[in-house]
């Protein structure tokens, strides 16, 4: 359940950035390689938001698929599922370009 620790961190960031206002929505980017379970993160988020300016806010997650550049043949690939494998040459040695995001992108705040 690393989702709970991640939820705590998200709520902390949102509370700080809210500057005393109420947060109505939190928009996140979550990379495929983070192995975050969205339902678990949403559940944890609701739990740890209680009693904070984030309480009752909606959590929106944009899931980012994995992409990588093959160190063997140089081809850039969208990487569908695990294991990560180059679609060009079948190699496994990849430089990860996308899919490791774990970021609070934006907030929606009530007008002061």
């Amino acid at each position, binding site marked *: *359940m*690393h989702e*709970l*620790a*991640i939820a705590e*961190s*998200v709520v*902390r*960031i*949102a509370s700080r*950035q809210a500057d005393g206002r109420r947060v*109505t*929505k939190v928009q*996140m980017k979550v990379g495929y*390689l*983070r*192995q975050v379970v969205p339902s678990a993160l949403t559940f944890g988020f609701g*739990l*740890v938001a209680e009693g904070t300016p984030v309480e009752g806010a909606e959590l929106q997650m944009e899931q980012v698929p994995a992409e990588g550049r093959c160190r063997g043949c140089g081809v850039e690939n969208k990487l569908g599922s*695990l*294991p*990560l*494998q180059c679609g060009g040459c079948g190699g*496994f*040695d990849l430089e990860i370009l996308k899919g490791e995001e*774990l*970021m*609070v*992108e*934006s*907030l*929606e*705040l*009530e*007008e002061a």
Partner: protein
Amino acid sequence: MHRTAVKKVVLENVLDANDTLARANRDVFDRAETYTINMMSSPGAGKTALLERTLERLRGELRLGVLEGDVQTTLDADRLARFHIPLVQVNTDPGFGGECHLDANMVRSGLGELPLDDIDILIIENVGNLVCPAEFRVGEDVRVMVYSVTEGEEKPLKYPLMFRSADLVLVNKVDLLEHLDFDLEQFLGNLDAVNPGVRTVLTSARTGQGIGEWCGWLRQRLENV
């Protein structure tokens, strides 16, 4: 009452706070010239048993210290107490019923009780878990995974986050291979698929197989510093 909402762009990485603390821990380790290993595995893979064999062999040669992470109990720390090395237990249960991993702040809370200047290698025994510890850097130089052959061949494909981040994988309980259907070649192939070229050592804490090679790897860490 009608309220209008306003959007605020934040662009803040969720793990930034942890990574900042991890870098601070790393500075503390570097100043003390302490090489630090984050040891991770599933529950029951044999981390503590391997540490017992390691301490039996290297105590008196290298100055080792251990930071034990567990959700609850001091059972693991109690097993290592007989070696009379610097040892601190960090329990993660003050969180929501117990965090399933160590983070940089939890490790920092234990450092005050360790004489780092007198420790060449600090081994941080993380909470047994194949997913969560991989997300949280704690200030380590390297990550060592312990994987037991009773866990099946496919786990590197199912839990690539941790297997990809390991610098060394100790494949433990190999004394059981003759009793299992575990296909070692297939496991090593799966491991190489997610972490190409990663070094492995076949170990058995029970028979002592591979402990010498693992201890040799530990000695080499200090030569490279």
